[in-house]
């Protein structure tokens, strides 16, 4: 099938949806939008439709399934669900298979030779995909069971080990953050009035009294120059050292919170 024809057919299917689907949308808008959102991809949708039609996966009624598939895509669009390119690629493939099925068999072909079913590749992909879909289900069940099992609470020795383990992904993520930080720093070097440490501690006090909790990140964001930042940082250290204020971090890389004890 020439590509231009395929595109034409696809477009035709893609754009005249409104009249046809309005009814269904009105009928069960909520239910459908929930269902559609659940499809993990075009193969998932296809499997659902095959089951819905109670069709045999080895003998897919391709015309009917293609129509249903396109109807769903139109429906997604009418519900303002962004239809990913992958869904459209599958639509094109379905239309291609459908048209191949309509072609008459070559009368001069060797009758001994069994022509390959145009659906074969699709069936293979569906079967392969469904294995992993079942595996995903199995993982889901295992995770659910695992969530019923709890490790011991913190013991003292954990505190000696307030460190984190790292992967290559952490390495690159952290490197990018440093690069970003460096970019920001260059734009920060503007002369400003100096703030004394005493003033800074006063200011910090006021903020903690105001909220009982203070995000360090947001406190530091109030300052533009490096000097101010350094003073702010020393003020934080000073307050933590001398007074009943502690620093809390819920998890690694999380924002650090100043808390009154």
């Amino acid at each position, binding site marked *: 099938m020439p590509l231009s024809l395929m595109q034409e057919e696809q477009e035709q299917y893609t754009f005249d949806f409104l009249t046809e689907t309005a009814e269904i949308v009105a009928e069960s808008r909520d239910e459908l939008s929930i269902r559609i959102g*659940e499809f*993990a*991809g*075009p*193969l*998932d949708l296809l499997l659902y439709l095959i089951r819905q039609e109670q069709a045999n*996966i080895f003998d897919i009624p391709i015309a009917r399934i293609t129509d249903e598939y396109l109807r769903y895509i139109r429906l997604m669009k009418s519900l303002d669900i962004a239809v*990913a*390119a*992958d*869904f459209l690629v*599958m639509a094109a493939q379905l239309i291609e298979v459908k048209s191949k099925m309509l072609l008459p068999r070559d009368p001069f072909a060797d009758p001994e030779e069994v022509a390959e079913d145009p659906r074969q590749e699709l069936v293979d*992909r569906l*079967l*392969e*995909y*469904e*294995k*992993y*879909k*079942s*595996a*995903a*289900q*199995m*993982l*889901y069940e*295992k*995770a*659910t*069971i*695992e*969530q*019923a*099992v*709890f*490790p*011991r609470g913190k*013991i003292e*020795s*954990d505190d000696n*080990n307030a460190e984190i383990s790292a*992967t*290559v*992904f952490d390495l690159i993520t952290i490197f990018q953050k440093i690069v970003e930080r460096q970019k920001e720093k260059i734009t920060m070097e503007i002369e400003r009035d100096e703030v004394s440490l005493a003033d800074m501690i006063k200011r910090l006090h006021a903020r903690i009294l105001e909220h009982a909790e203070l995000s360090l990140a947001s406190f530091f964001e109030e300052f533009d120059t490096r000097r101010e930042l350094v003073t702010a940082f020393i003020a934080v250290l000073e307050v933590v050292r001398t007074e009943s204020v502690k620093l809390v971090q819920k998890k690694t890389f999380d924002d650090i919170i100043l808390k009154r004890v």
Partner: protein
Amino acid sequence: MSEEATETAVETKQARGTGELMALAEALIFVADEPITARTIADVLEEDKASVEAALQALREEYDNRESGLQVREVAGGWQIATRTELHEYVRQFLKTRPSAKLSIAALETLAVIAYKQPVTVPEILEIRGVQSASAIKTLLEKRLIVTKGHKETVGRPMQYGTSKEFLIHFGLKDLSDLPSVEDFEDLVQ
């Protein structure tokens, strides 16, 4: 005097019975913040791995037999003490935790493909799932359930992914061979 002390130590070590070994292994599993291997326990106690493994099996049975609120179990290639599944309701109520956010279907599917096909590249995952998996992969990397496994030596040198130790812990698996074979799922499909 120091000589005498050494002698005593050696004697004690030789005379270590299964009961003592069980107690020592139990203490080490308890303080370890992740599953601890029989190898590590053997090294710390200067015992052979086989005796430690026997003690660990015995310890597991002891916990089962006394119908403890805890269990000794093998996970991610190591040993761990954890609460028993049946008690989750009360434990959760006490800790005031909810079951943590579940992975999306897309993330679970992607993880299943990575677990069975590792090391695997993004295009290979796309081939099987029929849909882009970038955001799922990002989530899995952030949750440390997968790790990078170097570049594949093909055109474009795409990055390869595989599952991590966290993956084994999260799903309560002893090791990767603990996963049911993917062919087993074929029967379900047909």
